Structures are given as C-alpha cells and as structure tokens.
C-alpha cells in the first residue's frame, strides 16, 4: 500500500491531478509532500488511473515535479474523545491551541452516514432562550436546526452568544450540555469575540471550537462543518450530551463549494452554484436531531449572511427548504435601534407547534403567538397605507394598529443583551400588548382563552 507517486499531471486552483494511480478509492485521503511540508488532499474524481485531488491547504508552492504523494487508504476521519471539550482545532480537526495532541478514543469518517428516519425521535422539548421574540414566536426546540438569516453589519454573532449564554432546558438536563462551534471563513476578531464570550459566561470548557478563518485555505472550509458535526454526533449520540452546534458563516461555506465546483469544470446552476448545493447543504443540516436509544441531541444554529440581503438568493433559499424554520434579521429594525432586530413575519419555527402549549410551555402560547403574528401582519398593511396617505388620515382602528406596532417593537422584540425573560414573562407581555387592540380584532383566540387571559383582571397589571 505504501506506493508513492512522484510528480503531478496537472494543477488547477485547489485541484491537482495524479496519473498512473492504481487501486484508488473514491474520497480517499492523499498525503502530498512538497519539500518539507505535508499537505492533505482528498480524491474527488477517478477516471481510469487518473485521480483528481482536492488539496486542503491550497496549492501554493506546488509544482508538477516537486511533490510526492501517498494514498492513505481511507477517507478523512475525525479523532474523537471527551478531551475535545475545551479545545480549539483548525478546520480539519487538528489542535491549534498548543495544548498538545488529542488521544482519540475512536475515529469516525467525517462524512457521517444518513440517519435512518425510523430511528429518529421527533423533537418536542422546548429550549428557553430568554429572548421574547424567539421563545414566544419562533420557539427553539431541542434537536431542531434553526438558522439565523442575517446580513452584514447585523448583530447575528451577538444574538448567537446570547442564545448560548441563556439557553435553558426545562427538564433539568442543564449540566449535560456542550457547544460545538465551527467558524468557516470568518474574521479572526469574530472568532475571538465568540471565544471571549464563551469564557465570560463560563462555558469555555464545554466548547469545542473549529476555526477556519477568512485567510485559511478555502478547501478546508468544505470539511470544517463535517468535522464539527462528527464531534457533535459523538458527544450527543455516544455520550448522551445535549449539543448546540453553531455554524458560521454558511455563506462562506457555499462560496467555497462554488469555487471548487468551478475549478472542477462542473456545469453551474443558479448564480454559478453547483447543482448539488441542496444535497450538499442537506448533508450538513440533516445531521441535527435526536435518535432512539440515546438521550443526547444536536441542535443546530447555522448563521448565514444573505448576499445583498436577498432572501431568495440560492444560499438562504435552499437552506430554508432544509432547515426547520429560520430567524430572519432585518436591517430596518436594526436602524431603529431594535435589538435583537428579528423580523417576525418571515421568521418561523416549524417544530414549535409540537413543543409548545399545555404540558410544554403554557396553554395560551399557540393562540397568543398566532394572534401576535396576525396583528403584526396587519400593522404592516396599515404602515404601507400610512406611507401613502399619511398617518393623520388613517381611520381610528388603523391608528390603534400603528400604536400597537410601535409598542410591540419597543417592548416585545426589543430587549437588552443581558435581559433573560422567562416564558411566562414573555407570554404575559404578549397579552399586555394585545390588550391595546379592541377585542373584536382578535380573531385567532378561542372564547375560553380570551376569557381566561385577555379579560382576566389579575394579569392586567402593568398594561400599556
């Protein structure tokens, strides 16, 4: 097996071609020695004795003659052990924090394998993030994949940190959690911000960080989320931990994929992204969940910056088709000084219907949420009208809606970075806001709930 191949046939961007290879297997790892440096690569196409290899560290300094390569006989594997917690690794899972090697308990193929749908457990446990707009209207469920659609200049990192700091599970499994953080193409100071924030909130020894920074090789970016999720799967399904995975920034990931696809000469589909972008993203996002026979879970919060704030761009679009909802941040709200600037209407949590209400949060939750959505949607209509005819000309009821909209944004969506609201506080706040509207406008409430919560005098304290 220890055959070495001298020289290369072709070099094109991050790809090299070796000829005369016997016995190569698809996706096998290759070690390429250039002078004193060793680089890792992966076979991505085989044609007879010709292999196309993707070099993780980039091809700078590589020439057709100065290399010799060795096939490693196996796909890229991630060493796994409980020692990973508290460590900082590079984009392909090698320690970079100077604390020495990790002694693996076992290793796994980073591509993972598809989870059999019959072995999944349907996620139903509510995670309280302490953020009203999320808990109340876009409830996060343990085992969910809920991305943040953001734009440049918006506080998505701050929001992610606040979620990590405040996330509480309602059934007393709070000690058994871990965070896996994967940075793909983010700036050094962003990675540092996360690290400092984890340190400040005292969770650093429960975090595994994978860093592929903006100046690190592009090809490495393709495997970073896969290494991170392999670690997460180990912690969750084998060690029974509740793992929160933060992947940032998925846009850089997709762009890396496009770069490699075009150097392979593949036929592009929309905006130059490869036709398999959907399947590829799915192979990352679908690794969230809960499985039978293990009490652990993987909850994913991928962060992506929408190019040009366009939600129909292929990256957010395909992501939205795979993930179980989305949290959309909005520039206009951010300009108004609203933090977190979550745009409620396009945001959604698909799993919330089964994780809220009686027995999970509170019986009135589904209806309050529904009514707040409907009323706030009405506010948008009224605002559109007001921008044409002026607010003064609006009818009485429309003016009430304008006021409701302002109060809702000021009190419900807005909240301090340090403020941690319980779900009860969030729901009561929702009722107080709804009381700004006349009862006949509330068409999503059942009579019983209206009597118990809308009209109940004891909860009217602090009405607006």
């Amino acid at each position, binding site marked *: 097996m220890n055959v070495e191949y001298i020289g290369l046939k072709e070099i094109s961007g991050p790809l090299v071609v070796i000829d005369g290879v*016997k*016995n190569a297997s*698809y*996706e096998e790892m290759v070690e390429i020695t250039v002078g004193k440096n060793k680089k890792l690569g992966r076979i991505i*196409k*085989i*044609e007879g*004795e010709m292999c196309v290899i993707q070099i993780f560290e980039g091809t700078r300094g590589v020439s057709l003659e100065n290399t010799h390569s060795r096939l490693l006989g196996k*796909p890229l594997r991630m060493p796994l052990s409980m020692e990973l917690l508290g460590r900082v690794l590079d984009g392909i899972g090698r320690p970079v924090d100077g604390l020495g090697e990790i002694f693996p308990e076992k290793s796994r*193929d980073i*591509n993972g*394998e*598809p*989870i*059999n*749908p*019959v072995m*999944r*457990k*349907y996620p139903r446990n509510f995670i309280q993030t302490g953020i009203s707009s999320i808990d109340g209207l876009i409830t996060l469920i343990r085992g969910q994949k809920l991305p943040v659609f953001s734009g440049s200049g918006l506080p998505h990192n701050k929001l992610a940190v606040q979620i990590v700091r405040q996330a509480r599970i309602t059934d007393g499994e709070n000690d058994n959690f871990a965070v896996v953080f994967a940075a793909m193409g983010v700036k050094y100071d962003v990675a540092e911000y996360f690290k400092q924030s984890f340190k400040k909130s005292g969770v650093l020894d429960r975090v595994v960080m994978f860093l592929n920074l903006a100046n690190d090789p592009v090809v490495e970016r393709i495997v970073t989320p896969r290494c991170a999720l392999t670690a997460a799967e180990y912690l969750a399904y084998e060690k029974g931990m509740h793992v929160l995975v933060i992947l940032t920034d998925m846009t850089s990931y997709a762009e890396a994929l496009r770069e490699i696809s075009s150097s392979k000469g*593949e*036929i592009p*589909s*929309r905006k130059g992204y490869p*036709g*398999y972008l*959907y*399947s590829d993203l*799915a192979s990352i996002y*679908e*690794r969230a969940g809960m*499985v039978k*026979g293990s009490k652990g879970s993987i909850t994913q919060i991928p962060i992506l910056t929408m190019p040009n704030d366009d939600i*129909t*761009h*292929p990256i957010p*679009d*395909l992501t*939205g*088709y*795979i993930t*179980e*909802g989305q949290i959309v941040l909005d520039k206009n709200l951010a300009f108004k000084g609203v933090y977190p600037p979550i745009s409620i*209407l*396009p945001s959604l949590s*698909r799993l919330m*219907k089964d994780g809220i209400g009686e027995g999970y949060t509170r019986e009135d939750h*589904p209806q309050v949420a*529904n009514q707040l*959505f*409907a009323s706030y*949607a009405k506010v948008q209509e009224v605002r*559109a*009208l007001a921008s*044409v*005819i002026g607010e003064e000309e*609006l*009818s009485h009821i429309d003016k009430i809606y304008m006021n409701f909209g302002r109060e809702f944004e000021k009190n419900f969506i807005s909240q301090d970075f340090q403020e941690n609201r319980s779900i009860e506080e969030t729901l009561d706040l929702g009722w107080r806001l709804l009381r700004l509207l006349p009862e*006949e406008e509330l*068409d999503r409430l059942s009579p019983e709930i209206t009597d118990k919560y809308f009209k109940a005098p004891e909860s009217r304290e602090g009405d607006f």
Partner: protein
Amino acid sequence: MGDTSHGTIYGINGPVIKVRGNHAFQMLEMVLVGHDRLVGEVIRILKHETIVQVYENTTGLKTGEPVVSTGKPLTVKLGPGIIGNVFDGIERPLVKIAEDTGIYIKRGSVMNNLDTEKLWDVKMLVEPGDYLNQGEVFAEVKETESVNHKIMVPPGIKGEVIEAVGDGQYNIEKTIVKVRDEKRIHNLTLVQEWPVREPRPYYRRLPLDIPLITGQRVIDTLFPLAKGGTAAIPGGFGTGKTLTQHQLAKWADADIIVYVGCGERGNEITEVLEDFPELIDPRSGRPLMERTVLIGNTSNMPVAAREASIYTGITLAEYYRDMGYDVAIMADSTSRWAEALREISGRLEEMPAEEGFPAYLPSRLSEFYERAGRVENFNKTLGSVSIIGAVSPQGGDFSEPVTQNTKRFIRCFWALDKSLAYTRHYPAVNWTNSYSEYSDELSGWYNEIAHPEFMNKKAMLSRILQEEGKLLDIVKLIGSDILPDEQKLVLETARTIRQGFLQQNAYHEQDAYVPVQKQYLMMDSILRLYEKTTRLVSLGIPVSVIRKSGVFEELIRIKYNISNEDTGAFDELNMKLETRLDEIESDYKQN
C-alpha cells in the same frame, strides 16, 4: 449466475460511475456495483463504456471493482407487507435496515424488500380447472384491518389453473397456484415484480367525475381534485407545503395513501411515523397507518435513489389501484426529484436547458403525471391513482422551470402564498392564482351528493373574493374609509369568508377535517348573511353598525363552535343572525 456478465469500474464521480470491459449491459438495467454490491442502474451506453448511477453513497469504491449485471430493470416487489411499512427510494424496508445497522443507514444493505418469513392468512378463490386471465384475483390476504390485499395474476399471464393450495398460512414466496398456458407453466406466489419505470396496464380509462374529498374547505369547495386527477402544490419555504400534504394524507377519502418524502427533512418522515398510528381514519375507525405506505429518501440520503423514489411510489400506487382501490400519492417534493435529475445530468456533462435542468425534464414530468387516472382494471374493478405533487420553487418564484413544466401536466393548481403564511393564514392557498380544471366535471357530483345549490353558492363565494381583490387595490392607495358602504360590506364579507371559511386550523379537533355537507352549510350561512346585510345597507344602515352587532365574528367562529355532526345547529344560527339583523333594522327605522 451463468448469464450474468461482468464489467469493472473505470471512473467514479459522485453517484455516477463508468464501467468498462463488458458490452452486454442493457439500458436501464439494474446492476450490482463493487464488492459491497451497491444497487445501480445503467443510464447510458457508449461504445467502450457504460455509465451507471448508483443508489448509494460511493465513498470508498475503487476502480477495478466488479459490476455485475442482473439482466432485469429496476423492479419493486409487490405483495402483502407493503401497507404500514416505510421504504427507502428503492423499496428497501427502513425498519429492517434499522434492526440490522442501528441509527445510520449503512451501504450495501441488500436485503429482501418484503418480509419473506411472515405467514399470511390466505383465502383462496380458485380451484384447479378454473381459467385465469391477467389481473384476475385468485386469493385474498387481510393485510391490515383496513386493507384486503387481493392477489392478482401478474400482467401478461393467463391460463388454466392446474394446481392450487387450500386456504391456509403461507409466506410470500410459496407457490400457491400453478397456471398453464400454451407454452409453459407459471408458478404464482403472493408476490409479483414490476419495473418501476413502466406504467402497469389497465383495461380502459374512465372519466374523472368523482371528487377526492379532503375535508379541507378551500380545496373541496373552491379547487376540488378529482379521483384519478393530478394536482400541484407549489410554494416557497415556510408556506406550508408539507403541512398541507400531511393534512391530505390524513383526511383524503382514498383507500390507500402512498406518501413519498422525496429529498425532504428526516423529521417529517418521523412525524408521520409517530402521528399516523395514533390518528384514526374517520371512515374506517382504524389507525391511519393501516392504509398508508411511506417512502422516504430524505435530503441526506443518496441522490440517485431520490430519482427512483417517485417511480417506486407510483408503482406501488398502481398496484393497489389494480385491486380496485382509490389510491392517492403525495410526492413531497417533486422539485427535489427534478434537482436529482439535474445533478445526475450535470455529472454526465449533458447539455443543460433552463437553469441547468436537463432538456428532458418536461418529458419526465409528463410521464410521471400521466400515470394518474381512474381506470377499469382487467379484473373489472374500478380504481384510481390521484397524484398530488409538492413543488418547491427556488426563491418562491413560480416562473422557474419545475413549476412551469409541472403546470402543463396537472389540472389542479393550489398555489401557496408567502404573504398568507406570514399572517399565519393556513392552508395558505391563494384563491386568486389557484385553479381547478375539474370543477365542471365534478359539478354533477357536488350538486347531486352535497347540495343542489352547491355550485351556485360556490360561484357567489368566488365572486365576492374576486370583488375584494379589486377593492383591496384601491384600499392600498386611499384607505378603506372613503369606500361606499356597499363596498365596505363586500370587504367585511370577504374577511368573514377568509377567516371563517378559507382559514382552517389543522390542530383543532373539529376543524382539522370538515365534511362537504358542513362546508356547504357554512358557505350558505355566510351568503345568507351577505344577502340580508346588503338589504340593510341599501336601506342606509352603515356597515359599522352591523359590524358592531358581532354577526360577522359569530360566523367566523362557527368552524369551532358547531361540531361536524351537528348540522341542525346551522338552522338555529341562521335564525339567530336573522333576528339580530331584524332588530337592527327596526331600531334604525324607529330613529
């Protein structure tokens, strides 16, 4: 294995492999690839090379590994044990795979599609000496409490029965009948095989004049689907495609539901698996799972099998149609299937047409949708296959190739709308750009079975909604305050229709499923109110006064307040509203 021929792997690119060293492969033949015997299919034959798409992950596959021909196209096994089961895209049982390989799906798990050990209670219907034609039923098996599985003579076989076993317990591989034709003797078991890409034959097609009742008001009343018809549900993400598909799978009045989760989320399959065994079919009183087959190729499972999953689903559906059942197949989502075609096509370096999709996308879509229909079978029974395909247009833009091409081959279009979904109006079916071409053909049924006035009332309802659409354009510019009262009344009535009728709560006990009778009565009450209030408005009574009386709100809540069985309550309600409006009228006259 004398007639099998070998080739060896020459090139590998994702799910597409090149094979050399054998020229005897047939087009669309099933092959076994590599030492792990991964299932693949021949998709192109060149002079020196054969191209195979592999239905499993190809990581670790090596050049030089053997590729073995099977001599037959990609087929599925059809027999008892299908209902209630979950299969992957090429009909391998996922429950069995889970028992063998745990939480992950490992490669090369070749196994029997159907349980070969289970003994079924077989009731025989023929004796030696009887003559059997193709498609005729010769035995029966109680597959589940709800489904009587009829064992049929496979297409193309007929002849005299020369041997038949008695009633008893047999597994699916046991020969229970021997049939002799002119040339040879055929051994018939409980199971038959069929190539998935070929439609199963039938005697003749029938007109589509019976609706598939779904219990969803916006569908049954405004945009009905015929049994044997085709429908598409396009919608951007978050508009509730899957929710709508699940609702249809739960409540549609079909005998068998085939649900194909094609390239979608794993949790959605899990949800069906957890929910359906507990939900009760309102017609049979048995768990819904007893009439349901799931086919799951989730988005992280191999992409080539995604392409096959749609065909596997429709073949299973046709098989049950042949028994005389009404079958509905939900494909969620056909866009993922189209993307799988695109991905394979890209790897074959074919010349792309629109947006990278292959030029044969329209012909593949039409082949699929044409397999729907209501037919008379060879065994004289009547059956149907209705297809409901979800479409996930990129960026929610209906002008993209999959939506546009699908539109040419379906006759019922339920367009889901983002702005409705944003206001949590579900089902988010947009009533202005959805349509059903079956309405005319089905009008006879509705007028006869539901109510003689049904189609008239429906037309009135549509008219009000249309009127509202026009008025809203004006309101957007100048506000609703300055509209005349007649038009304000139209807006108010349309709001009542939208919130009280079109909006339906999938999680409410009474509202999740509504019989057509009640749909009619709800429609009737709303229109009665409109008629009466129009009169009041013409007398000069302002709409605001009528609104204050709460009559509209009362109507909006009937979907919760009046139970599905309690049809008598509508008379009471109509009386009550009438008296209240009369009071308003007399008050007004006095002042």
